[in-house]
């Protein structure tokens, strides 16, 4: 029983979550007595034989390469449908990220297939895959099995680690696919636009992150002063980045960056799953939020229930004073 993975690439590099999906699929396929195939889709010169074959290092044995528009889900659905049907793949697996969700969902409809999303682990039970999925804001975990074929597994961001398997290059197979009409009706105008200043949060040992609870863009001045006092950098949630309060480069979580600093101080952040997956590996998590029921208090090491406008200025002064000591 073999497993097919979609490997997303951009400007000559594979996505970290896609490499994780290849590693996971290769491991599971071995248990099932099958192999891991990977689909790559793009139009640029960067999709070279060498780049495609390099997925072999993570355990893919075959790489199916199709020339079609990249960065959009529906052309990939057409490609994966064909590859699954011609080669009998039993499962399709996706690493976390926007496109994986969309492609997996499209395949669900196309193949009348079962789908499980936000999966954090996959196991083999009685010769079949069973997906573990946290539900209800991570307050419970369900084991989901599949009836019929194929089964579709969409991972949560960072659920699957990329691991080099020690295998050699994968065989690269070109696939010709005629796209369906509707798959050509969305056209990329601009991809990967960076909005706002370029800031580096991935190397910071201390991060002060701000969310909607700051109230407005000016609220970030509180975070900046505190970050300066602590010797750290400022990060932000997706909500405030989309609202234009802070630069995209500072965004944590789903579609943004994943960080694991020594100290992560969250100000006015409720702690939705999409944010949690980007920072939960931080060594020390401190949360300040006025809502005692905010989910972030479920996974913070120190939670402070109160008004950040009162607390942060005094905290900034106290940190400065302590450092002078």
């Amino acid at each position, binding site marked *: 029983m073999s497993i097919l993975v979609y490997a997303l690439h951009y400007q000559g590099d594979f996505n970290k979550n896609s490499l994780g999906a290849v590693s996971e699929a290769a491991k599971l396929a071995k248990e099932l007595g099958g192999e891991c195939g990977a689909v790559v889709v793009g139009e640029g010169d960067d999709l070279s034989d060498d780049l495609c074959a390099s997925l072999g290092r993570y355990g893919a044995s075959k790489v199916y390469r199709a020339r079609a528009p990249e960065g959009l*889900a529906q052309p990939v659905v057409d490609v994966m449908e064909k590859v699954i049907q011609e080669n009998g793949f039993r499962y399709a697996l996706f690493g976390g990220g926007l496109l994986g969700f969309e492609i997996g969902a499209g395949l669900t409809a196309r193949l009348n297939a079962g789908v499980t999303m936000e999966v954090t682990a996959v196991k083999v039970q009685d010769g079949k895959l069973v997906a573990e999925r946290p539900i209800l804001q991570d307050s*419970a975990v369900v084991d*989901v099995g599949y009836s019929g074929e194929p089964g579709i597994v969409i991972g949560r961001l960072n659920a699957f680690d990329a691991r080099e398997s020690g295998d050699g290059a994968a065989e690269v197979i070109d696939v010709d696919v005629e796209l369906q009409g509707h798959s050509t009706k969305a056209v990329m105008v601009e991809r990967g636009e960076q909005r706002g200043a370029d800031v580096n949060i991935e190397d910071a040992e201390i991060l002060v992150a701000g969310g909607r609870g700051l109230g407005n863009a000016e609220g970030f001045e509180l975070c900046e002063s505190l970050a300066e006092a*602590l010797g750290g950098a400022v990060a932000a949630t997706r909500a405030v980045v989309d*609202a234009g309060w802070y630069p995209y480069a500072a965004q944590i979580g789903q579609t943004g960056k994943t960080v694991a600093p020594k100290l992560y101080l969250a100000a006015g952040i409720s702690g939705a799953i999409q944010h949690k997956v980007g920072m939960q590996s931080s060594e020390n998590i401190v949360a300040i939020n006025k809502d005692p029921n905010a989910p972030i208090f479920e996974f913070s090491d120190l939670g402070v229930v109160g008004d950040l406008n009162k607390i942060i200025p005094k905290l900034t002064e106290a940190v400065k004073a302590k450092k002078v000591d």
Partner: protein
Amino acid sequence: MKICVLVKEVPDAAVEKRMDEGAKRLDRSGEKNLNPFDTHAIEAAMQIREGGAVDVDEIVAVTMGPESAFRALHKAVSLGADRSVHLTDEALAGSDVCATGYALAKALEGESPDLVLLGQQSDDGECYTIGAVVADHLKMPSLTQVIKIDVNAGKLRCERQAEYGYDTVEVELPAVISVGDAINEPRYPSLKAIMGARKKPLDTKSASDAGIEPDRVGEHGSRTEVLAISPPPEKEPGEVIEDEDTNETVERIVSWLHERKLLT
């Protein structure tokens, strides 16, 4: 142009959500409400209508759910929809994502919309995927997590955050667009709109009315099965400070940081 907005009835935010261990489904008893993410989709439809770039003849709220879900439709109408469609049938109960997407697509086929809008996720199921499932059944182009829509000459110019930054994508109509919650601030319904919502047309459809094949929906038609439910991995609860005296609070935070050598 005709816009259909897919909406869902979900447990109210104040209700603690839990699983029904016997049926292995979400326990949907208790107070219910319109899925909060859907209000952004209705607002997006209203802004397209009010924007004037295209004539919007009709905004139709469409749901699939038990009998009680008419209340979510009333709320959708109070927020701006002109009428609503309620797909309801015992045979649909227990449908998974695959079956639900199929059934909703069948209900939408009867409406022939130019644009289908929906919220990015339901507050209870958190699946993020229904839009893309529906789109493939309807053979329409689709995008999810859209935070800006401009209508121009029969096309939509959509912006969203994807893996590598912001993408701008042009989409031909008819299309299915799921919107992120950053797209707008939904308005509050007026008292008059709330009172008037009950008088707006509401079509109730059974599965067979919508042309749904019975073996593709419900628990039998679903392609996934919940095998087990377990509590999440244990995590030591953290320390919590209620801020009463801010000077004292700050002192406690500083010593907590200092103990962990984070103030060097």
